[in-house]
């Protein structure tokens, strides 16, 4: 049922687009007569309509809401812009609701779209061209934050015209790390694994030498979820990377043409290794039905001590294991390689959040000005963090930055989470939190409280502290060519991708799972054939056409 609804939503979104593109639809909230004076303020004030998703952790101060908060006040006072939200939904419903709004032509002035919606709307001519207003009105910080991500900007540019504010170009969240139970390593007198062979030894020791000391053989070697490479917990990408295989991304072949990483021979070698591990019992017998929540339970119950996962794994799910067990501690290391070549992290850059202006919007420059103001209030010299970033009142944290209208545009011009890591570790060294913004201060406090014995702060320590995932990232970013394999394709989904990609991905996951469970390795060759004939070849051609013009 849910699936049927999804299909219907997508189809309708595509077809009704034609109808709405032709129908005339008066857009309330536009004020044609208003213009900006020399200070950039609209007089009389204009109303800009928008839509929003509400993050689950977001809370408002007493008396405030989306249309009445520090940002909306600043918008009105400094820009003469009144923001009105047509609708607000919880985060995960945004896409469905937006598809319906697009299909029924019920669009606000500024809104966020994903890559395929962006392409549809651009093709239907429903978006305002932002090239000129960006050049003319964009502040220094705005331009810095957009220009920092050249690939992202390229993905928002169509025929040389900037049609959207691109999202940040941030690989951090997509990287995989090696997380290992250090208390188990110490107990069994093992060193943190530097090579793939050492990692295998550690896994075997964790399985056979009873690291939790309960006298039962109830541990296994490495965590793996049924999604294999999705969702950031218990992923297999560490194994693929060890064999220099990069399933799911587009890499450059020997002839300079793009090829899909999923069908390369290196993948077969990695699958053979995973199959061997499964046979040996290093992988959970039931991994094929476990999602990240279930694997998280295994961490907490102390059943497994090796995990390939994202930088935030210490905050969840590993934090539960540390809170639950007074000895537990995990360390984080970069991926290891099976041979002399360094293991590269596979980075799938999919730009999927674009902020756009409706073509019918009378003052598209207002979008740029709103974004200017956000940047000024958050990152400039006269930023006011408690008012515009976050504020702690009693035991509650109010994250004001969620109240911005333009939530997902541009990179953080002062460095994002990586910048936080630098600041927090420097403050820890100096033992002085002065100069930290409230967010950084929050991380700092948690780490200090962990050092004081509060184990709830452990997760933050392993992300922003000294021996943390960002420490590993710092090392990795020193030489990106040696540590990252970044997908060479970052455009909007091609025609065949829209039609076939989901099917091919499903086939891939099924085949890989079957092989790990013990199917013959020749199944992989059959998969490659099928992949090519079922649309993969066509996708490759389209991707190379794109590559030829966007190299």
């Amino acid at each position, binding site marked *: 049922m849910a699936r049927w*609804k999804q299909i219907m939503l997508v189809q309708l979104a595509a077809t009704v687009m034609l109808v709405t593109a032709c129908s005339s639809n008066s857009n309330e909230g536009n004020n044609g007569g208003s213009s900006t004076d020399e200070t950039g303020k609209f007089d009389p004030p204009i109303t800009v309509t928008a839509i929003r998703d509400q993050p689950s952790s977001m809370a408002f101060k007493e008396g405030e809401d989306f249309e009445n908060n520090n940002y909306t006040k600043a918008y009105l006072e400094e820009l003469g812009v009144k923001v009105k939200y047509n609708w607000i939904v919880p985060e*995960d*419903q945004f896409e469905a609701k937006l598809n*319906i709004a697009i299909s029924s032509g019920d669009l606000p002035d500024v809104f966020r779209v994903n890559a395929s919606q962006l392409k549809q709307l651009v093709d239907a001519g429903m978006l305002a061209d932002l090239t000129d207003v960006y050049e003319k009105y964009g502040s220094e910080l705005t331009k810095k934050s957009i220009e920092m991500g050249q690939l992202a900007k390229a993905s928002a540019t169509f025929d040389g015209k900037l049609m959207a504010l691109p999202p940040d170009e*941030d690989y*951090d969240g997509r990287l995989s790390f090696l997380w290992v139970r250090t208390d188990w390593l110490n107990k069994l007198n093992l060193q943190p694994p530097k090579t793939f062979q050492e990692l295998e030894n550690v896994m075997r020791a964790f399985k056979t030498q009873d690291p939790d000391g309960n006298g039962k053989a109830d541990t296994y070697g490495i965590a793996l979820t049924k999604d294999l490479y999705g969702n950031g917990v218990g992923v297999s990408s560490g194994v693929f990377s060890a064999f220099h295989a990069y399933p799911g991304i587009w890499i450059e072949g020997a002839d300079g043409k793009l090829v899909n990483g999923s069908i390369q021979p290196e993948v077969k070698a990695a699958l053979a290794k995973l199959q061997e591990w499964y046979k040996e019992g290093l992988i959970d017998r039931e991994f094929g039905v476990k999602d990240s929540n279930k694997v*998280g339970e295994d961490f907490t119950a102390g059943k497994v001590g090796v995990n390939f996962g994202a930088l*935030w794994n210490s905050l969840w*799910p590993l934090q539960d294991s540390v809170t639950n067990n007074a000895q537990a501690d995990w360390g984080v290391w970069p991926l290891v390689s099976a041979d002399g070549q360094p293991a590269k992290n596979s980075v799938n850059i999919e730009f999927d959040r674009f902020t756009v202006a409706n073509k019918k919007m009378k003052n598209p420059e207002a979008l740029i000005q709103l974004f200017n103001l956000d940047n000024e209030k958050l990152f400039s010299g006269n930023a006011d963090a408690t008012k515009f970033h976050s504020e702690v009142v009693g035991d509650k944290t109010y994250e004001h930055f969620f109240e911005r209208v333009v939530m997902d545009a541009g990179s953080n011009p002062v460095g994002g989470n990586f910048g936080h890591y630098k600041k927090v570790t420097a403050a820890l060294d100096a033992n002085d939190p002065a100069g930290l913004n409230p967010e950084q201060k929050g991380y700092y406090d948690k780490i200090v409280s962990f050092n004081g014995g509060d184990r709830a702060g452990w997760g933050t320590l392993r992300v922003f502290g000294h021996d943390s995932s960002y420490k590993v990232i710092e090392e990795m970013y020193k030489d990106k060519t040696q540590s990252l394999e970044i997908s060479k394709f970052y455009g909007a989904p091609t025609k065949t991708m829209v039609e076939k990609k989901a099917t091919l991905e499903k086939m891939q996951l099924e085949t890989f799972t079957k092989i790990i469970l013990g199917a013959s390795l020749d199944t992989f060759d059959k998969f490659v054939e099928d992949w090519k004939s079922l649309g993969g070849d066509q996708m490759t051609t389209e991707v190379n056409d794109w590559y030829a013009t966007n190299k």
Partner: protein
Amino acid sequence: MRAQLDSRKVFQTANYTFLIGISLLCILPFIHVLAISLSSKTAAAAGSVLFWPVGFTFKSYDYVLSKPAFVDALLITLKRVGLGTLINMFLTILIAYPLAKEVRDFKYRTAYAWYFVLTILFSGGLIPTYMIVNKTYLMDTIWALIIPGAVPVFNVILLLNFFRGLPRELEEASFVDGAGHWTVLWRILVPLSAPALATIVLFTIVGHWNSWFDGLIFMNRPENYPLQSYLQTVIIQQDLLRVASQSLDSLAEVSERTSKAAQIFMGALPILLVYPFLQKYFIKGIVLGSVKE
């Protein structure tokens, strides 16, 4: 004779085992959710809770009941079930009555019947429905959840067939005694149709209670969501790959397993309570309503 008895015993044993197995399949998930909701957070996070709470506590219920979002959503759903059932039942009865007549009493009966049945076969589709609700300014009001589904045609057909099964003599006698259509409907047919009405009321209540998609589509603010739309947003799995660039703090919410379980259980509880009561009435109603000709 003996062999027959044996085979009957075998059949019954197999039958009971099978049916008990099916019942367990239905009940065990509920018990599991209940056990998690009554367990301590750490036990739930370690996955050590099966059918019996570990580290018994009412904390998650305390937490959920003090959460305005849950209570508000519950109130909206109660309002929706009350209003919706009333309107649904009224319209169902009003429409079923004329359609239950013979063609000689009501000339265009067939045409009208098809007019209604057509809406079962072909629906307007999601987008047109959305556009109509939008253009009629029903968005974001409780009426957007009630009016589009105000006439449940399937229930009309159920009731219509039940009306037709009642002895025509009753109606004819009432007309002879001077009753009009209105009196016949409300004083003769409706009281006699208790079993059918009970069934339909149950369908309607469950339908209103369980529907979530319309709430998601027609409501413009999360504060106006009915309970099931709200629950859907609580239990859906977060896209974790997005988290890193946003606020890392939200990760702490992922392992709120006990409070999620408490909300799911409390969302199912009222309807679980309604079922046995109406079912009891429903069985009694069938006996009372049987026609003795």
